[in-house]
C-alpha cells in the first residue's frame, strides 16, 4: 500500500517577474511504513513540495497540475476544511528550525494539549499523553517540562519536543523538513536515531527532507533526488547511491564531504548555478551544468527506467 502518491505535480508562484514554475512534473511514492528521503540543493523546491502536500503554499503559489493521492484522496481537491482536518492527525510535520518552531509565549504543555483538540480526551488525559510522549523523546522531568516555555530548552531539546508533538498525533505520514540541519553533528545523529526508533514503534511512513547525503543514506530506504523543481532520479537508497545514473546525482555524490577519499582543502562543487525557474529551458534542466551534455539534451529528456523502481530523467541513461 502506498500512503502518499505524487503524480506529475506542478506548482507555480506568481511573481513580479512572471510565473515561477517551482515544481515541474514531480512524481514519487511513499509506501507504507517506509522512510523516503528527498535530497537536493538549496532552492530546488523541497519546502515548496511539502507546503503543497500540506496545503500551506504561500498566497502567490498554486498547484498548477498533477495529483497528490493521500490514502486514496487527492489532496489538491480537498476543501480547506478537510485539509485542516488532515493536518496533524494524518499528516504531521517537523520543521527545519527548532528555535522558531514552537510558540514562544505558550507553555509547552499547552501547545501539546492544544493540538489534541480533536481527540475527545479529557484535559488530564491529554496532559498525560503529552508527558508520555516527552518521556519517549527523553526530555528530562517531562511533568515539569509541560509548564515551561520553549526558550527554557536547548535547541536539541526543542527539536525533540517538536518530534514528540508530531508523533503524538500518531500520523499515517510524518514529514520532516530538514529537522537536523540546525543541530550540531552529535545531536544530529542522536535525533536521527530517535526518529528511526519512534518510526518503527509507531509504524508511520516518513518523508524526510535533507540536503545532507550522509543522513539520507543512514535513515532512508528510498531516495528522491530533486534538481530545480524536478525529480531527476529516484529509487532505493542502494540503487541511487551505489549506481546513480543521472549526472546530477553523480556530481552531488562527488561533492559530498564524507565521500572525499583524501583530505582536500577545496571541496569539489558543481560549476554553474540553478537556472532561473521563471524561464525554464525547453530541454534538460541540468544540461547547462552537465559534464555529459550532448546535442540531444536540448530536447526534453524521457524518464528512463534503469531497474525496477529505479528511474532517471536523462537522455544519457544507458540501461
Amino acid at each position, binding site marked *: 500500500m502506498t500512503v502518499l502518491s505524487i503524480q506529475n505535480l506542478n506548482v507555480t508562484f506568481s511573481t513580479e517577474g512572471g510565473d515561477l514554475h517551482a515544481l515541474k512534473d514531480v512524481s514519487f511514492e511513499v509506501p507504507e511504513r517506509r522512510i523516503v528521503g528527498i535530497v537536493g540543493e538549496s532552492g530546488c523546491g523541497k519546502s515548496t513540495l511539502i507546503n503543497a502536500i500540506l496545503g*500551506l503554499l504561500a498566497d502567490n503559489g498554486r498547484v498548477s497540475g498533477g495529483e497528490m493521492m493521500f490514502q486514496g484522496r487527492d489532496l489538491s481537491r480537498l476543501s480547506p476544511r478537510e485539509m485542516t482536518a488532515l*493536518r496533524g*492527525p494524518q499528516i504531521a510535520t517537523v*520543521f527545519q528550525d527548532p528555535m*522558531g518552531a514552537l510558540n514562544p509565549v505558550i507553555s509547552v504543555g499547552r501547545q501539546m494539549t492544544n493540538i489534541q483538540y480533536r481527540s475527545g480526551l479529557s484535559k488530564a488525559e491529554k496532559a498525560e499523553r503529552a508527558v508520555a510522549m516527552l518521556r519517549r523523546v527523553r526530555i528530562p522531568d517531562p511533568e515539569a517540562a509541560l509548564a515551561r*516555555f520553549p*526558550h527554557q530548552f536547548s535547541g536539541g531539546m526543542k527539536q525533540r519536543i517538536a518530534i514528540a*508533538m508530531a508523533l503524538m498525533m500518531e500520523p499515517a505520514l510524518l514529514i520532516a523538513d530538514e529537522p537536523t540541519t540546525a543541530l550540531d553533528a552529535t545531536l544530529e545523529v542522536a535525533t536521527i536515531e530517535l526518529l528511526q526508533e519512534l518510526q518503527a514503534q509507531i509504524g508511520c511512513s516518513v518523508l524526510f527532507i535533507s540536503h545532507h547525503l550522509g543522513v539520507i543514506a543512514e535513515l532512508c530506504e528510498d531516495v528522491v533526488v530533486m534538481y530545480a523543481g524536478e525529480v531527476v532520479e529516484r529509487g532505493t537508497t542502494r540503487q541511487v547511491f551505489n549506481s546513480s545514473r543521472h549526472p546530477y546525482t553523480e556530481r552531488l555524490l562527488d561533492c559530498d564531504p564524507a565521500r572525499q577519499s583524501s583530505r582536500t582543502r577545496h571541496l569539489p562543487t558543481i560549476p554553474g548555478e540553478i537556472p532561473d525557474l521563471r524561464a525554464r529551458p525547453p530541454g534538460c534542466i541540468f544540461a547547462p551544468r552537465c559534464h555529459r551534455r550532448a546535442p540531444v539534451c536540448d530536447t526534453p529528456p524521457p524518464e528512463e527506467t534503469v531497474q525496477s523502481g529505479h528511474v532517471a530523467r536523462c537522455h544519457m541513461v544507458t540501461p
Partner: protein
Amino acid sequence: MLHYTLSRLGLAVLIVSVAMLILFSMIYLIPGDPAAVALGPRATAAMREALRIKMGLDQPVWVQFWNFFINAWQGDLGNEVLSDRPVSRVVLEQLPYTLALIAGGMVWSVALGIPLGCWAAVKRGSLADRLVGVLSVAVIAVPSFVVAIYALLIFAVSLRWLPAIGAGEPDDLGDQLVHLILPSIAVGLGWVGYIARMVRASMLEVLEAQHIRTARAFGLPDNQITYQYALTIAILPTITLLGVGIGQMLSSAVFAEIVFARPGVGKLVYDAILTRNYPLVTGAVLVTTVLFVLINLVADLIVGALDPRVRSSF
C-alpha cells in the same frame, strides 16, 4: 515574575526621584524670588523675608532639595498660593476626572483599534485592509482639539444628543458616563489609528513566523491561531506603545478638559498657569509624572505576564 516586578518597581521609584530632581532644579533656576511672586508687588521686604524663612528658601540648596524630596515622597507638595490649601489635596481632587477621561479614551481606542488592526492583517491587501489603513492615517492626522471642537459642535450643539460641558452630577454615575463620551472620543480617536496600524504591522510579522506555520501544520483552527497564537505576541509592542503614549493622551486631555469645561488636572494646570500659581503647577506636573510612571509600570507588568521571555531575562 517576582524578580521582574521588583526590578520594574525599583526603576519606577528611580525615575520619579530623577523627575523630582529635575523639577526642583527648574523651580530653583527660574529667575525671580518665589516669595515675592507669591506675595505680589505690594508686599513689604519684611513680609517677603518672613515668607522666605517659612518656605525654607534661606537654607542651602541641598537642604532645600532634600526637604522637597522627602516632603514630596510623603505627599506634601506645599500649599498653593491663592487659597493656601495643600497642593496635593487640590490635585488629587481633580485627578479622578482626568483618570476617567484617559481610561475612557484608552478603553474604547483599544477595544476598536486591536480588532481593526487584527482584521486588516488577516485580510491583508483586501479592500477592508486598505480602508482601515486610510482611516487610521486620517484619525492620526487630525489633532485632538479639532476632534474635541467638532464633536462638541456636531453631537452636543447641533444634534443635542450628548451634553456639551461639565462632568455630570457628582452622585449620578450614568450622567457622568454620558458626559465622558465626547471628551473621551476626542482623547482616544487618534489612538484608534495608532493602535490599528501597530497591531496590523506586528500581526503581519508574527503571522509569517515559523511557529505559526507549525500551528497550521497541526491543523489548529484559524481563529485560535489568529487570536491565541499570533495576537498574544503581536499585542506586546502595542502595550508598550500605550504606556509611553499616555503622555500624549495627557496632553490631549488638557484640550478636552478646556473645550468641554470639564474639571481635571489639565484644566487645573491651565488655570494655575494663567494665575501664576506656581506651587500648583509644580505639584500637578509631579503628580502627572507619577501617573505616567505608574501606567508604564503597569504596561511593563502586563508585558511580563504575557511574555515569558521578558520575565526570565531578569
